């Protein structure tokens, strides 16, 4: 054929579709239920079939997150920072892919989608820098009135269930995952129900960023269906309700009381698109404070007794 075009779609070549899968325990399973649901762009055009996760998928994800918690929370803050920065590096290399996915998912122009992706990459960098600083900002020595050394330090709370924002499929997603894992928690994330594809692709990035398997687990499907067993799960320590509407948020908060999960209620987002600079609230919401006392011997009044 002599007719050639710059645009690949006009060459007549048939493209290869990607099968979107969950990301659990560092692997890419389909839903154990075998179910999928149709994901469309805002105009209703078909984009892909995404796994429709079941409560058993949620259960498996919690097991994976719990298993990963020991090593991840025990890693040095420096090491966690290096890995979060690596996520930014790997995302930068797949920027075009995410721009396309975000544009399709949210019906944005290329340039608006690009701004979202760039902000998401920078957000990983922002949290990469927090791993070894948060303890210096929220922890510290306490001048107790007695001969005691007294130090308060933040520690991660454990396994955190995260309902990703429904509207901001990527920047919102990154904005809720990164603060949870920066401090050493592990996460079970429910992707935006109608726009899960960027989240499922993020799993592929995380899997190649030296992030240990199980630290982040990504599920797609009906938010309410997956969130219910997570909110009631006795081996989940906290839940971020960012992606829940008012009714669901209340239901989940009631369920979460069974083991007194730390609950982060849906927060008003300054800009609906999550572009405002985050503070430290999303980290401190999932931190415990541990205070250690230790005698320091005598402080002089009673003479020298060491």
């Amino acid at each position, binding site marked *: 054929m002599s007719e050639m075009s710059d645009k690949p779609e006009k060459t007549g070549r048939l493209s290869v579709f990607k099968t979107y899968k969950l990301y659990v325990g560092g692997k890419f399973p389909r839903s154990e239920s075998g179910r999928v649901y149709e994901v469309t762009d805002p105009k209703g055009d078909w984009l892909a079939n995404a796994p429709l996760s079941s409560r058993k998928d949620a259960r498996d994800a919690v097991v994976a997150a719990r298993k990963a918690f020991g090593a991840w929370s025990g890693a040095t*803050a*420096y090491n966690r*920072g*290096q890995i979060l*920065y690596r996520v930014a590096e790997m995302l930068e290399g797949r920027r075009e892919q995410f721009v396309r996915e975000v544009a399709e998912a949210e019906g944005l122009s290329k340039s608006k989608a690009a701004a979202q992706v760039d902000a998401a990459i*920078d957000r990983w*960098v*922002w949290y*990469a*820098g*927090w*791993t*070894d*600083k948060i303890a*210096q*900002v929220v922890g510290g020595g306490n001048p107790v009135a007695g*001969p005691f*050394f007294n130090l308060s330090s933040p520690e991660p709370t454990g396994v955190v269930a995260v309902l990703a924002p429904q509207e901001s499929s990527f920047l919102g997603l990154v904005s809720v995952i990164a603060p949870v894992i920066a401090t050493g928690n592990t996460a079970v994330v429910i992707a935006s129900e109608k726009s899960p594809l960027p989240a499922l692709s993020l799993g592929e990035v995380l899997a190649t960023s030296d992030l240990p398997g199980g630290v982040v687990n990504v599920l797609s499907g009906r938010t309410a269906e997956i969130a219910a067993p997570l909110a009631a799960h006795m081996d989940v320590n906290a839940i971020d309700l960012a992606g829940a509407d008012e009714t669901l948020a209340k239901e989940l908060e009631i369920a979460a009381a069974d083991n007194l999960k730390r609950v982060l209620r849906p927060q008003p987002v300054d800009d609906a698109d999550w572009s405002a*600079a985050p503070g*430290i609230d999303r980290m401190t919401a999932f931190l415990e404070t541990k205070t250690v006392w*230790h*005698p*320091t*011997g*005598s*402080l002089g009044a009673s003479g*020298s007794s*060491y």
Partner: protein
Amino acid sequence: MTMENAHATAAFEYAPAPESRSVVDIAPSYGLFIDGEFAEAADGKVFKTVSPSTEEVLSEVAQAGEADVDRAVRAARKAFGKWSALPGSERAKYLFRIARIIQERSRELAVLETLDNGKPIKETRDADLPLVAAHFFYYAGWADKLEHAGFGAAPRPLGVAGQVIPWNFPLLMLAWKIAPALATGNTVVLKPAETTPLSALFFADICRQAGLPKGVVNIVPGYGDAGAALVAHPDVNKVAFTGSTAVGKEIARTVAGTRKKLTLELGGKGANIVFDDAPIDQAVEGIVTGIFFNQGQVCCAGSRLLVQESVHDELLDALKRRLSTLRLGDPLDKNTDIGAINSAEQLARITALAEQGEAEGAERWSPACELPASGYWFAPTLFTNVTQAHTIARDEIFGPVLSVLTFRTPDEAVAKANNTPYGLSAGIWTEKGSRILAVANKLRAGVIWSNTFNKFDPTSPFGGYKESGFGREGGRHGLEAYLDV
């Protein structure tokens, strides 16, 4: 013949295991790095930098004078406006780039540093370079979080920082200076030491690779006169110096009456206090690390060993046995523990102080140790029967020389440890936690190591009390020196 018999005669001699020198390409000459370009000195002067382990000339380096320092400060001033106006997140990304490039080039830089400084490759590879990269990584993360650092809602940078660094940890001291300065939005003119200029000049190339805007970092190798000119320059807003207490005092006088902010990290005479309930094998390791790390050319070295009299003999036996296993020689050999002294001048100073120790009646001991024929070398040395009255217990030797003193009670240990004009570091060895904390409370020193020694981390503030200087480098505290607060 059985293997058993065969082995009875052989010994486990480690064959030479030299790190490859070919990973680093040193040019025959280097210029000053000003406004993003390498340039000759205004007066055309150059100086040679040699490898202390062989006395081989490594390269010829342009020698900055007053005019060059002025040009560098102007470049830094010119760059300051845009650099300080960048969003913190953008400055952060430059610093992250630098950190990553240092990680990528760390083997090359480790070999370079070993060649120029004389310290063992084991140290540059496993301590200096990882700490350098980590320091940039850490302060990169602060660049966009300054409002969380406790210095107000929008702390401002100072302007142009004039920084003068020593030869004992050339690249690490550069990192301690440049990383917080850049993170907070300052621009810098840095003068490396005249015996170790090369890693700073390689760092200039890293700035190029990272795409750092011109003039943000300027490097002016040279002697004390260049340092003095930098410190005295009227358009410098901040002076940071690491080096001797004598020069530190001179600098304090120079900046008196100006608005320049000053931090000084100076000498030390650290006490390493070993109680009778110490974990003895680890204490021995800590004593060795404390005084023989980097041939003792460390401001926070544990150069005075204060040992409880009841365990003195036992500890000294163990220490001497351990010192006999130290391997002194080619710094590029991966099995070398003790490298070369940095310069002939430093060697002469160490030699003179050690001789004075003998003359004043202290008992000198070194393990059997053959020193290479060329280069600057000093065998690991212990002095026992030392008292607070001996010169070697008072003056900073800055070499592999340990003075051993005894004490009877914790009070006496604290009194002796504090009995010095310095106050940089101290070590405490005991298995009893409350004793550690009580003694630490009473020590007048900026860094106290308990059951460890010579540990460094970018998150941890470092700096001295008294004549060891003021200001802290590292950690959240390290930001203050570069902010208008």
